[in-house]
């Protein structure tokens, strides 16, 4: 069990079907150097240029809402590619969708892989405002593992992501060989965001990561 290769892919089609190639296929795009994930307002469309107009998410006047669209900002093409099935039915085209984001492992692990969120690329802390500022339940990012089944509801709740304090197991046991793991994710916006500084709104350091072990 050498260190497995871990490829991250997102489904940019409207078809809720499994990935067939760890390097990407007609539905899934492999994330490569320079790519990033970003949530935008419904006015943003797949195919829009990254250098063009961007439509940021809108903070609700009261209570909370779900960000409308998740995009892969594709560095190589210079375009936004919408992860169409991301989020719940409260988002643009999400819902009870299973094959949305994927981590492909080339081999076995010593423990269950987890999806986590951290303040930055040290993968050590989760104290920033978007991750709940010490209260994991208040994290603005929620995810649900769909490796073994769809969420079961078009308005799935999901688990807040905040370091190891609140995370999702991407499978029910350790990996014994190569495997695709899947999850769906969403971004919650609350009216309290209006009181944040712009630096907290535009936090570019946040990192989603796959936590695993090998021997």
């Amino acid at each position, binding site marked *: *069990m*050498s*260190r497995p290769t*871990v490829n*991250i892919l997102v489904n940019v089609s409207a078809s809720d079907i499994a990935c067939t190639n760890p390097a990407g296929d007609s539905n899934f795009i492999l*994330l*490569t*150097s320079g*790519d*990033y*994930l970003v949530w935008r307002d419904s006015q943003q469309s797949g195919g829009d240029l990254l250098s063009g107009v961007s439509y940021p998410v809108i903070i609700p006047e009261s209570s909370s809402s779900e960000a409308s669209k998740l995009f892969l900002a594709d560095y190589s093409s210079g375009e936004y590619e919408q992860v169409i099935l991301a989020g719940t039915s409260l988002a643009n085209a999400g819902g009870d969708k299973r094959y949305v984001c994927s*981590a492909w492992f080339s081999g*076995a692990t*010593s*423990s*269950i892989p987890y999806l*986590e969120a951290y303040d930055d*690329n*040290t*993968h050590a802390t989760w104290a920033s405002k978007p991750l709940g500022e010490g209260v994991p339940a208040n994290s603005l990012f929620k995810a649900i593992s769909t490796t073994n089944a769809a969420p079961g509801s078009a308005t799935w709740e999901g688990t807040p992501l905040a370091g*190891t304090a609140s995370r999702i197991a991407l499978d029910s046991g*350790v990996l014994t060989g190569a495997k695709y793991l899947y999850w769906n994710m969403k971004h919650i916006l609350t009216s309290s965001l209006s009181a944040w500084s712009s630096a907290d709104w535009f936090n570019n350091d946040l*990192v*989603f*990561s*796959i*936590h*695993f*072990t*090998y*021997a």
Partner: protein
Amino acid sequence: MWKIKLTLEGGMIHTLNDVRTDSPGWSECSPGKIEQLNFSFLGKDPNTLKESQYDLCLSGMDEYNFFVEASRSLLNNSIRILGFWFLGKILKENKVVGFVIKDRVFEINTINGIEYSGCASSGWKPGIPNSKIIFDIARR
């Protein structure tokens, strides 16, 4: 240094690969029964901040385990090593002991089955249990 040294039943020594590489070698080795696990590494003394060599020793355990804890950013193809886990299982007490080497050294002393962040770990290899149980780190 940075390699696991296994003392096997009968006194034979088996040395694995550098744990910092992509292939530490633990999962591939089928060593028979392990009498003792040793691991030497460099670390800073928390008081003097001087770098010293430390020797980790696990002995007398029913079973042994080792794994590397790692994290892979979704948007960056680099994998960050977060820690090296060295564990021993004491069945009669239903517990797992050992150490995690990160930026600091953490001691593990917990109930069997929840040794890794509340979860069980896989990859255990048989030991030779005896009454002289050792789990210790000493500065050389």
